[in-house]
């Protein structure tokens, strides 16, 4: 884990708390904090939050922000695992805060009542759980993540068989959340590695029967920072909230490189 220091327990509430719903238990939410305007390094802070088993971790973070400490900063939007805003380390693994329910973390007889939340690793932390996504998006943009075709466009749609469409279905699901890339040990050590998410998005086009840009993309991925860096540890696959077979996609790209021409 990151070198966060002082472990502070927050006592400060802002005014009255909202009524606690029936069946709620108090969870300790331990959060890695960093405010660029006041902190020189990250620190830990714990908050007591009443929670229902069906609450999402995102609800707990909202509770902290709305009632205990308004300065807590994180991204979120859709709240149901579709926009990719709220990737973070929850109890040490990369998850979307809106897709993890409290009850999933309390297994083991409800004993573990502490939930630890930290920013995803390998991208610069801007404030609390909010990281700089630019390096990640840059890698995505670098693999030409768009359909490349030559010649005249057809007047109607391009024809594509259902089987050809199925071929790349898995990698169309990516929401660019960065859970995979920021769980990759190679990316942690060598930030210049494209990372799994970029390769997933290259895969989405390389295996699209309509696309004619595979060669250009494979050249990019053959590069020193490309697919050969991957050591097939499957962290990325485990982390993907969309259930994408990330490592398999990377393997398929490697194979396409080995057998091309």
């Amino acid at each position, binding site marked *: 884990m990151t070198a966060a220091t002082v472990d502070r327990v927050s006592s400060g509430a802002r005014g009255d708390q909202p009524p606690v719903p029936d069946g709620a238990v108090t969870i300790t939410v331990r959060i890695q904090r960093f405010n660029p305007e006041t902190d020189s390094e990250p620190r830990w802070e714990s908050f007591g939050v009443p929670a229902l088993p069906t609450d999402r971790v995102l609800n707990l973070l909202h509770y902290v922000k709305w009632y205990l400490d308004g300065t807590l*900063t994180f991204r979120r*939007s859709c709240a149901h695992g579709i926009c990719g805003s709220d990737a973070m380390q929850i109890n040490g693994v990369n998850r979307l805060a809106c897709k993890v329910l409290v009850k999933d973390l309390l297994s083991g007889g409800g004993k573990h009542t502490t939930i630890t939340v930290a920013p995803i690793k390998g991208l610069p932390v801007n404030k609390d759980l909010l990281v700089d996504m630019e390096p990640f998006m840059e890698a995505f943009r670098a693999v030409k993540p768009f359909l490349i075709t030559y010649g005249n466009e057809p007047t109607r749609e391009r024809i594509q068989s259902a089987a050809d*469409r199925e071929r790349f279905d898995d990698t169309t699901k990516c929401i660019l959340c960065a859970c995979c890339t920021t769980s990759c040990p190679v990316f942690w050590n060598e930030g210049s590695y494209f990372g799994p998410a970029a390769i997933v998005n290259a895969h989405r086009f390389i295996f699209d029967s309509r696309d004619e840009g595979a060669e250009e993309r494979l050249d990019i991925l053959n590069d020193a920072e490309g697919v050969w860096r991957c050591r097939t540890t499957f962290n990325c696959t485990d982390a993907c909230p969309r259930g994408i077979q990330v490592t398999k996609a990377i393997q398929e790209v490697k194979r396409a490189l080995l057998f091309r021409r």
Partner: protein
Amino acid sequence: MQFHRYDVVIVGAGGAGMRAALAAATEAGHAPRTAVLTKLYPTRSHTGAAQGGMCAALANVEEDNWEWHTFDTIKGGDYLVDQDAAEVMAKEAIDAVLDLEKMGLPFNRTPEGRIDQRRFGGHTRNHGEAAVRRACYAADRTGHMILQTLYQNCVKHGIEFFNEFYVLDICLTETENGPVCTGAVAYELATGEIHVFQAKAVVFATGGFGKVFKTTSNAHTLTGDGMGIIFRKGLPLEDMEFYQFHPTGLAGLGILLTEGARGEGAILRNAAGERFMERYAPTIKDLAPRDIVARSMALEVLEGRGAGPNKDYVLLDCTHLGAEVLESKLPDITEFARTYLAVDPVTEPVPVYPTAHYAMGGIPTNIHGEVLRDNDTVVPGLYAAGECACVSVHGANRLGTNSLLDINVFGRRAGLAAARYAANHELIDLPETPAAVVQAQLELVLSEHGKERVADIRTELQATMDANASVYRTEETLKQALHDVQALKDRYAHISVQDKGKRFNTDLLEAVELGFLLELAEVLVIGALERKESRGGHAREDYPNRDDTNYMRHSMFYKQGDGLKSDIRLDYKPVTFTRYKPMERKY
């Protein structure tokens, strides 16, 4: 403060904003300097949450034509639709879908390899004979694919984005011909800095405001900023009382389960297992338009036929569809039910109840996306498209799949119109101190002037809107809502935020967003109070019938005076008819 100069500035990077940016960059015959300002990273926009489909009369799987689509849109909108606009949308739908396919969108395919199509509520063959397969789709991730495809093409064409820039005001310069739009003012999340963007044309594509309600399919960030900004400038908003409640939200949560589920054959049942829609819409049953299905569900619950321990929801039965259809055509919603309700749609019916979903009203525009400052005068240089706009193609009730269509057709039109306007006009001077309003607003929120918490006011707002201004409304409930909203506005004057910093101050922005929500909630409620009839998504228990004599007209809301507590003036605008006469709506 930083100054920027562009030909075209687009505010919002959802489907409408990015389609506008692409049209401006690639279809206008010249490439204007374009900037897209967005408070979210483009791929975080809520277009990505859209599930079921985007309709166009491609006739890939059965006979269909755009005229039927036009008729369905108008009838679905309970005849409050501007018929010329509906014709444009239905006609251009076909190219809109084909354009997306050419940009790379991975639609599901027919056995012949063409774009597959499925049934959706209110879309019928030959003016209501039977449901027709018109919705083009990519599993239940159609919006995700649209958003990704548009962003991918923006990358391809090098569109310039300013991510996490919150636009909080526009610049209107007074000329002898009235106000002209000359730019936008934005707050940069990363630094807290104010940026003034001078531009020849500004396109608003800021999406909806579902967060005025508690139970909603909308994202936390859908706070109606664009509509609020326009309204505060004294420009009108149109038909704000028409808010759509989607029948199938996960009970208690509001997370959406697409109508595409019913399109694939899922059935709504009450506690007794009865397929109750057979009583309310004998011909197309579960595929009746959303307003009708949502009201039917609410009635089942009100009359004691609801399911569950508190009899407060109904059931969406997908069990007969089989695991394969669910996993291949409806995988995401299957997962939502499993994750958030621990219900497996393969084996059990899913608890559902209506959820606040879509704003039919918004910033009035003509069919070119030009913003109107009264019933027919445009504001030169100002455009709007997507959910924040009201063309009006959805009238009193939007048909499913018509919004993904709307954002593509009118997003493109607005982008093109803005680019062409920019090519033929010079930059006009900004008004003096263009950022003054925003600076004063932010300083006020940051200053110490009270102890009210943003979360408390927002929670109470959402509670009263759910209780008093949702599927069914009465004079009494609406008066209560108005009273509550106005009291909350008073309290808003005393809010305090805890984060006083410059960097990534989302505490501050949540407070600003709440200001927009309060403003729009009041407009919605006043519109609903004044419309003493039931039409489409607006159902008054005390006035259960449609009243074409008095209310076949759009509502136009104008803010008078400054400050949050100013008056609202209500005016009216005629509906445009081409060839469809209002009829009783039966399905």
